[in-house]
């Protein structure tokens, strides 16, 4: 049964990458209620940062990771305060905020993309780091992808535990479910939302650095990542970290199975079919719940 094991493990690794690039968005969309269309651009920006660290400064991109995560947290917190808080204040309900945030972040997308185009140009960038074969139970995997998977799972677990067992985590969950009621429980909704948005930005930056070690990227590729992350987020249930992780892993395994057992040309069809089926059976996503 080595083929099955091979498919399972490679699928989980691929899924880990999908989950990693979606964890931030589920926080931003689920808790801060911001449909961040510029999400992918921040991932690419972090990828460029790692590229510059490795190619320009000849240092390990993991050092870049340590620098970029707090940097991204602060930057996204600032963006929330300056760009998004006015929208939050004047939005009468959740739908209005969603529409406003889509428009605002759509503009932000072009700003970030434009800056990257000017600094790095539009061409493909790629580098190799930790592209070392690792043998797990007879299956050969690439170390950098394994690292991305490990980070995704770790973040997912930490987030799950933090959300369940800490005060801040419970406050964030409350804001995700019902901001009005959360406010009545003396939870500073604004602060929680800003924190969630900033944390989402930090997570996507971490994701960007890690995937840059094995993917080829260019300044214009942000939209592809935003789209894929959105699918993972919605499939897993908006706002649910474990949901995003599970959905990502599931997508990875399905895609790998179809590519190996069926036809690689059917992978897109299969992933979208899975997406549709999940939503038909559980409209709020795998782990989602109706929120007001």
């Amino acid at each position, binding site marked *: 049964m080595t083929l099955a094991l*091979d*498919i399972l493990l*490679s699928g989980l690794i*691929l899924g880990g*990458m999908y989950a990693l690039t979606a964890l931030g968005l589920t926080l931003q969309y689920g808790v801060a209620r911001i449909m961040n269309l510029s999400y992918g651009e921040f991932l690419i920006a972090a990828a460029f940062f790692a590229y510059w660290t490795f*190619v320009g400064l000849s240092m390990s991109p993991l050092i870049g990771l340590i620098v970029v995560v707090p940097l991204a947290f602060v930057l996204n917190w600032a963006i929330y305060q300056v760009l998004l808080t006015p929208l939050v204040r004047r939005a009468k309900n959740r739908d209005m905020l969603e529409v406003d945030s889509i428009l605002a972040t759509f503009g932000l997308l072009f700003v970030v*993309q434009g800056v990257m*185009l000017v600094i790095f*140009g*539009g*061409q*493909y*960038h*790629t*580098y*190799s780091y930790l*592209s*070392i*074969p690792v043998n797990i139970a007879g299956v*050969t*995997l*690439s170390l950098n*992808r394994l690292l991305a998977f490990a980070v995704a799972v770790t973040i997912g677990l930490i987030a799950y535990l933090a959300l369940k067992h800490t005060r801040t985590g419970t406050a964030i969950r409350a804001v995700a479910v019902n901001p009005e009621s959360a406010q009545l429980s003396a939870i500073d909704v604004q602060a929680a939302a800003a924190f969630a948005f900033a944390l989402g930005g930090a997570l996507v930056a971490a994701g960007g650095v890690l995937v840059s070690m*094995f*993917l*080829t*990227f*260019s*300044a*214009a*590729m942000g939209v*592809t990542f935003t789209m894929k992350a959105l699918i993972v987020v919605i499939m897993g249930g908006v706002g649910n970290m474990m949901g995003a992780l599970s959905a990502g892993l599931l997508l*990875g395994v399905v*895609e*790998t199975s179809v*590519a*190996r057992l069926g*036809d*690689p*040309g059917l*992978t*897109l069809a299969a992933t979208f079919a899975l997406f549709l089926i999940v939503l038909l059976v559980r409209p709020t996503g795998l782990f989602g719940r109706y929120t007001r």
Partner: protein
Amino acid sequence: MHIKRLIATGAVALAAGLLSAPVQAQESIKIGWSISKTGPFAAGASVTTLPNYQVWVKEVNDAGGIMLKSLNKKMKLEVVEYDDRSNSEEMIKAVERLAEQDKVDIILPPWSTGLNLAAAPVFHRLGYPQLAVTANTNRAVEMSQRWPGLSFWLGLPSELVDGLVDTLTKLQKEGKIGSKIALISVSDQFGIEQSTAAREGLKKAGFDIVYDKSYPFGTQDMQPVLKEAQAASPDSLIAFSYPPDTFGITDTAKVIGFNPKVFFVGVGTAFPAFKGKYAAGAEGVMGIGGSNGNLPGVKWYIQRHKEIIGREPDRWASPVTYASLQVLQQAIERVGKIDRPAIIKEISTGEFDTIIGKIKLVDGQNKNIWAVGQWQGGEFMGVAPLAKDGAVAPIVPKPSWQ
């Protein structure tokens, strides 16, 4: 009432007369282009097309401009640039704007087969020559006949595949490889056209295609495809891929230890980023295209590109793009003035000296092309067409991954 109206009419007539005064004498040659600076095509255009346009303009202007015999003076180039955002409607609008509003003398073509074919009827209607370097289609000859100003510079997909099949056939005859081939391609026009032609050619040459699959553009994990290909134990891997998957395939093959005797990947192999990423590991990798790195013109060009743009050019379409601009310049100089029909005729019939050697178009097609190249000693050398001047012998079997 009558007098007021008369005065008004007179004023309008006077104004119209003044506005339609004869145009000032031409001070520069206006060059326009619509290029993908944003959107999915930006990555390709930023490597192959835009930098070459910029290098050419700089080179020409540094030398004082293009000599127009009819005016007996050298005219510098003035550039009007639009971003078509990888969108064909935007590109068409930009081209029309360049012709009708900016009234440029020459329009340089956009990037990619798709955009060039969409632009062809417009270029033809507006009367501009179209040196469509980054267009690669088997219908090229038919199109050049339909639109005489349209020329193709990289060879037909069938010629590219013929070069590959010839290379493999020769290697098999020499006993260096067996007959088993794994063929993969990206599900896009390029991948589909090439793999269709390759399948036919390889079967005719007696090869056995043991794995034959295509994958969607943007696939981020090539492991499933390559592991399946590896399981079929092919002697050669042929992948008609685009830059992100070209890198992905090479990376994954390295990790899973898949090292067939011939390792051929598609677009992107000729990029300096390929050499940059894999360094010594690129040695022996074959790819589409190629160039004669030993030609002094090519050597000069690589150096100049690096000086002006800050990085090296790609080793397939970039030198050809620059050569096409040299052809354009020489055609303008020979005609002596901006007479587009005459320039089109000169481009189609004349013989030109360029950095890649002599170029003479046949039915609108440049025949000075490379089909297969291989990284040898840090340079992407042309391997096929086998009989072409400057072709080097391929290094087979491919050295092990480093």
